[in-house]
């Protein structure tokens, strides 16, 4: 084997900080990660409803607790105490197993996300991360590929039409978008020279990867929306087409809560992974990073949580802005745009990295990369163009087919109720 091919980046250092902690510390960290995820989900549900509410000119939940912040807790308690309905015709073992198979991997995936640097817990120096492996990022992938089972099996075990369609859609969707997501991370591996999350974060102590690897970052952001079944790619649970999709028959109780929980945990996990891979992990953002103590102790946990909240806001923003797209358009986007773009981009990044490692000077590098690009562009330009398809313009007989009734062009739109509410005295704005 030739060392020149293999050493794309500096050799990774061993992860000696993990796997040597005392057992009580591991248990403490496990409970800590679980609690962190739970609080983030409780926060995330209210946060999303509030943000979407403001985007749609309403207030959002405001009944339970101050400003309605305990709404998700109340909903969760309600779901836990509701009657557990088991439909008569379902495949009982698989029906019960399916929500568990979605919820467990969702939590496991977060165990490799680094929340902070080394901190002191009861006198022990230990990294703020449950565990790490030489292939840490791939653990998240393995977990998300296992989470598909819960969705697919829920669709099948429900013995009902809409869940089956939702499950089939979901299987195809998650496999397709996992490829795009996986390819977008390859460039990060090439840059960081490691697949372990803690080392990728350590490699970003200077500059974050979202700028040099901007193409990967954009593709990752699109792909994870499809991977987590969130709007505008929430086709497996499209309520206008499939009632509730794969969990239509999970009408109440803790099993539905598990699907809800794992969806939001998945959102937290992919936001955390985006922060880890592209946004510097727990490193402080620019103005804060001038303060010397910003990257020490427990402060990074705050920066990291802030980055996750930004990711969750992004998801909510998409949901509040974009309409759901059609399934074939969605698949075309994944297979014909995201994956080919990604492959070309990885080729480019790998070429540049290899040349840098072999100390090729800049002029030669530009020549080697530029000539193929110019050739491809020339072929594109000089290729004989196919004549455009003639568009048939039909004469429509207005008598026979009157046009669809539309509002008049000079319609006067009434003023926004928000305006009236803003000027009214406080206390009048009562309900959402």
């Amino acid at each position: 084997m030739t060392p020149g091919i293999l050493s794309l980046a500096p050799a990774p250092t061993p992860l000696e900080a993990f796997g040597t902690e005392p057992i009580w510390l591991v248990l403490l960290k496990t409970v800590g990660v679980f609690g962190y995820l739970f609080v983030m989900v409780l926060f995330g549900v209210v946060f999303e409803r509030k943000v979407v509410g403001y985007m749609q000119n309403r207030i959002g939940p405001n009944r339970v607790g101050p400003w309605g912040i305990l709404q998700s807790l109340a909903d969760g308690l309600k779901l836990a105490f509701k009657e557990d309905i088991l439909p008569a015709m379902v495949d009982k073992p698989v029906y019960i197993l399916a929500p568990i198979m979605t919820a467990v991997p969702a939590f496991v995936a977060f165990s490799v996300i680094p929340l902070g640097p080394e901190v002191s817990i009861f006198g022990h120096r230990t990294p703020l991360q449950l565990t790490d492996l030489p292939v840490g990022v791939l653990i998240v992938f393995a977990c998300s590929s296992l989470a598909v089972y819960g969705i697919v099996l829920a669709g099948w075990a429900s013995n009902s039409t809409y869940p089956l369609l939702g499950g089939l859609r979901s299987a195809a969707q998650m496999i397709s978008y996992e490829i795009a997501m996986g390819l977008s991370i390859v460039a990060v591996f090439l840059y960081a020279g490691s697949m372990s999350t803690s080392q990728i974060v350590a490699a970003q102590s200077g500059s974050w990867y979202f700028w040099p690897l901007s193409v990967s970052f954009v593709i990752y952001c699109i792909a994870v929306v499809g991977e987590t079944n969130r709007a505008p790619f929430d086709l497996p649970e499209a309520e206008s087409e499939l009632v509730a999709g794969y969990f239509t028959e999970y009408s109440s109780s803790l099993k539905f809560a598990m699907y809800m929980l794992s969806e939001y945990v998945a959102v937290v996990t992919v936001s955390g992974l985006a922060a880890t891979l592209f946004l510097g992990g727990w490193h402080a953002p620019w103005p804060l990073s001038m303060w010397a103590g910003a990257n020490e102790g427990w402060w990074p946990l705050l920066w990291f949580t802030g980055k996750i909240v930004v990711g969750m806001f992004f998801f909510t923003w998409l949901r509040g802005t974009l309409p759901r797209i059609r399934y074939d358009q969605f698949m075309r986007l994944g297979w014909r745009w995201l994956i080919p773009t990604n492959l070309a981009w990885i080729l480019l990044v790998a070429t540049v990295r290899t040349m840098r490692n072999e100390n090729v000077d800049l002029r030669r590098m530009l020549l080697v990369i530029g000539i193929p690009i110019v050739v491809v562009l020339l072929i594109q330009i000089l290729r004989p163009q196919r004549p455009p398809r003639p568009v048939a313009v039909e004469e429509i007989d207005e008598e026979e087919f009157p046009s669809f009734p539309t509002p008049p062009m000079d319609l006067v739109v009434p003023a926004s109720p928000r305006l009236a509410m803003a000027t009214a005295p406080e206390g009048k704005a009562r309900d959402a």
Partner: protein
Amino acid sequence: MTGQLLAAAGDMSTGESTVFVVLGIAAVVGAVGMVLARNAVHSALFLVLTMLSLGVFYFVQQAPFLGVVQIIVYTGAIMILFLFVLMLIGRDSVDSMVETLPGQRTAAVVLGLAFAGLVGATVYRGVRDITPRGIPDVNNSVPVIAAALFHDYVFAFELTSALLITAAVGAMVLAHVERPAGTRQTQRDLARARFRGGRPQPLPGPGVFATSNSIGTPALLPDGTVARESISRLVEPNLAVVAARAELTSGGAGHDTGERSGVGDES
């Protein structure tokens, strides 16, 4: 065989041997269950259990990359595609258990046990005197695998990928439907045809009454007659409910029988 292998590997840690015993049992249960399960989807799920156990075995043997690849590729992608096809056969269908070859089951058990004994004995004899070497550099296994795949065995690797691409193209050719250029109906064409077809609105849903909410129960129009479009041509209409309902509302038996024959013709 498990006990012998355990005894052979004397320097295993307690944790490793515990994991091996627990997951070894799980893997064997999955394998046996996969063969014995009557339902195809249950069978696939047992196979998933075996594959997951194998993935964890790789982790325990300090090959985390292989373990993760086993889970992502085999469990996550290939088995999901299997399941995708199996799901389409529906939950209620069970394989026919009628034996067409007499004595097949006995022969299969005998030959299967013989094969397992043969393989077990061969493996046992083969690995009895081997001392485990371990993996030299655990944290650097990915570059080693990459060098083997893309450098030492690059020709075999490319041949395999060519074979896979040929298979994929072949499947696409087999499933391809030849259509003259420009005849594909777009969403716009379909919408236009629908609005000119005399019925732009959706078809009525099936009837939901206090006594039935089946898709086989046709909806009733305001005058009590059956709305034919409300049930699929593929579903046998459940006319008893409609008859009872019509009797309650109009009390006319003759009207009811007329509708029954009308819908019956369609099914």
